[in-house]
């Protein structure tokens, strides 16, 4: 198993972001030369298939009920599998057309987050839409599955929230913390950002130490031939970043993600969560 090459995992569910997810994952797969896998999960709804309010149980009640439930759910799942299969095939076709050499498709039962945790070891980068099918109508907000996914997965996650445009200008939110250092070295080493322009952004009260921090970071990126602009912003971190994103027409934001501790996130209000709410551009979260 360990020999197997880690792949880019792209989560497709038929929502409006699925196409963009497909494009972004193809882009990454091409850039980093990794195999691409499309995943569709068949989530079993909590809503029961059978509801009979007679309240009477007769001969073999439990057995009959089991048969009835099995039959209805079998049909329901079969339809979902078929539907998912069509979407996956379409996505695969598109990815192959855009030049990805190894494309696989997979279908799994169960909620997205739990499937991803099981597949974690095989994942190199995960690409997901910001909201799934269930929240199709919502204008903003983060999908329920996404938050759990980000919390439980320790892999880079690209959250897609708009249709595809080749990421050329990227923004790296940097404050010298260990998560952001990791993000920095990832940007520096990944083939995905070879020809990109990187805006290295710090938000908060600036002093001497910040300047040296940014300079060091800038140097590190320039060593790997990336064009860097350093910027210092003031104000609420999430708002400042979101605003800068739009002003500078940034294609992609890279940042370190949620601290592991749920308690801390609960007490301090998770910055990543706020950022997911505010951002209008794709976000690459690094753990």
């Amino acid at each position, binding site marked *: 198993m360990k020999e197997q090459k880690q792949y880019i995992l792209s989560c497709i569910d038929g929502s409006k972001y699925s196409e963009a997810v497909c494009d972004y994952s193809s882009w990454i797969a091409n850039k980093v030369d990794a195999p691409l896998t499309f995943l569709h999960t068949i989530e079993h709804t909590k*809503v029961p298939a059978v*509801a009979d309010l007679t309240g009477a*149980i007769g*001969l073999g*009640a439990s057995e009959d009920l089991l048969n009835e*439930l099995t039959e209805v*759910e079998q049909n329901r799942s079969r339809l979902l599998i078929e539907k998912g299969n069509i979407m996956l095939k379409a996505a695969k076709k598109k990815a192959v057309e855009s030049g990805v050499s190894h494309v696989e498709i997979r279908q799994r039962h169960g909620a997205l987050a739990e499937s991803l945790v099981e597949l974690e070891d095989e994942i190199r980068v995960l690409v997901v839409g910001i909201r799934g099918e269930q929240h199709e109508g919502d204008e903003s907000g983060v999908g329920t599955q996404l938050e759990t996914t980000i919390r439980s997965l320790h892999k880079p996650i690209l959250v897609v929230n708009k249709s595809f445009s080749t990421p050329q200008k990227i923004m790296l939110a940097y404050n010298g913390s260990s998560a952001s250092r990791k993000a920095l070295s990832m940007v520096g080493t990944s083939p995905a950002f070879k020809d990109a322009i990187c805006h290295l952004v710090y938000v908060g009260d600036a002093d001497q130490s910040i300047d040296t921090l940014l300079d060091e970071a800038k140097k590190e990126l320039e060593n790997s031939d990336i064009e860097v602009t350093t910027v210092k912003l003031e104000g609420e971190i999430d708002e400042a970043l979101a605003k800068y994103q739009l002003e500078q027409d940034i294609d992609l934001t890279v940042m370190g993600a949620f601290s592991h501790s749920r308690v801390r996130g609960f007490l301090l209000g998770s910055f990543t969560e706020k950022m997911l709410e505010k951002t209008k551009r794709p976000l690459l979260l690094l753990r």
Partner: protein
Amino acid sequence: MLLKSTKADWVGNLRGDILAGLVVALALIPEAIAFSIIAGVDPKVGLYASFCIAVIIAFIGGRPGMISAATGAMALLMVTLVKNHGLEYLLAATLLTGVLQIIAGYLKLGSLMSFVSRSVVTGFVNALAILIFMAQLPELTGASVTWHVYAMTAVGLGIIYLFPYIPVIGKMIPSPLVCILSCTAFAMIVGLDIRTVGDMGELPDTLPIFLWPDVPMTFETLSIIFPYSAALAVVGLLESLMTATIVDDLTDTPSDKNRECKGQGIANIGAGLLGGMAGCAMIGQSVINVKSGGRGRLSTLIAGSVLLILVVFLNDWVAQIPMAALVAVMIMVSIGTFDWRSIRNLKDHPLSTNIVMISTVVVVVYTHNLAYGVFVGVLLAALFFANKVSHFMYFEKLLDEDSSTRTYKVHGQVFFNSSSKFIEQFNFKEAVSKVIIDLSRAHFWDISAVYALDMAVVKFRREGAEVQVIGLNEASETIVDRFGVHDKPEELERVLGGH
């Protein structure tokens, strides 16, 4: 975490849970009353218990969608305690039952359920159905019973099973409710002189209040209640875990069995402190809940709370329900609980399986204690299994005439049950100068096997032969407790290979 639950557990299936909860609440009322009568206490004891247990389990149970309340299995165990010592001792026993169940939960005894085979579960369910049915018989066979009672029970059953066939409304209104309402209305209008729920004892007229059982806190009290509590704890957990498995199967979702044990314990403590009797999960009601579309914790909560509200506010009306209507509902529950497929399967299943199932039923019906039945069933199943496995043994016997050497190559499983067969395989009458016992393809599972080998070696020596044992180390690798580290195929093949 005992209180951990997801949002989906509560509101994931709002409509289904609310409707199913209502259906179950209505079905729980007659059951709680009937089981109180079995136990020999006022109906309010069972009704308070059903309320407490259902509501507490809704929050801390390990199996969303399963219904727990006062049950027949538990009520049957309390009869003599109530008769000899009274209600207060029952409440104390209920508290102790809860404590024992919590301990069982922390010791992870829920996993012991794996020893309870399918046939024992079937036997348990069938025995339970028979007991519930038999508990209704006094209402039908008493001296003062008039033909009105028979007629009403028959009509009641007719309504329960035929009402669902009426188009549209048949599927919307629970038919047991229709049965109770129409029987009650008929009895009141005609003014029939038959027994009603009101005759059976006190109904709740207030919400339950906190009560510490009025028993002396002495060792003597403990020695009275402990045997009852232990039996209640075992039966309660058995029925709860079996029901949980049934609900798991029906809904195709997993559950946390150890959490369910702790939850049942806490629920029983709650019931004991609020004047209720011990209870557990109910197979029939849980099936009704799932059938009515209940899946989440909300269904259990609604069932418990609506039950109490209905009974407290309608107690004058509940008192008018004829016992005959109640009997009809309980007969339905017993029919619905019985596993009819097991009767059909009798002719296809192996005899040993059938014996296990039927013994479980017979022992329970005879003792009125489900714990004994399960104990006998599990024991029999284990014996049958040991017997089957002991057949997996054969000897290869080779004779080398030149050196006068007899080689016994043992294949298979040697343990307490097969050890005498193991000795019998050797031919001690044969006069040879050397005996080689090759055990590299055998497995010694316990000390009986080692002892049998020693005996064989000694016997051969006495006959004047030189004995050489080969491969004892490999053979006895399985003797250690917790033989189970061999999860890799090559390891398994090495240790157990060749059989």
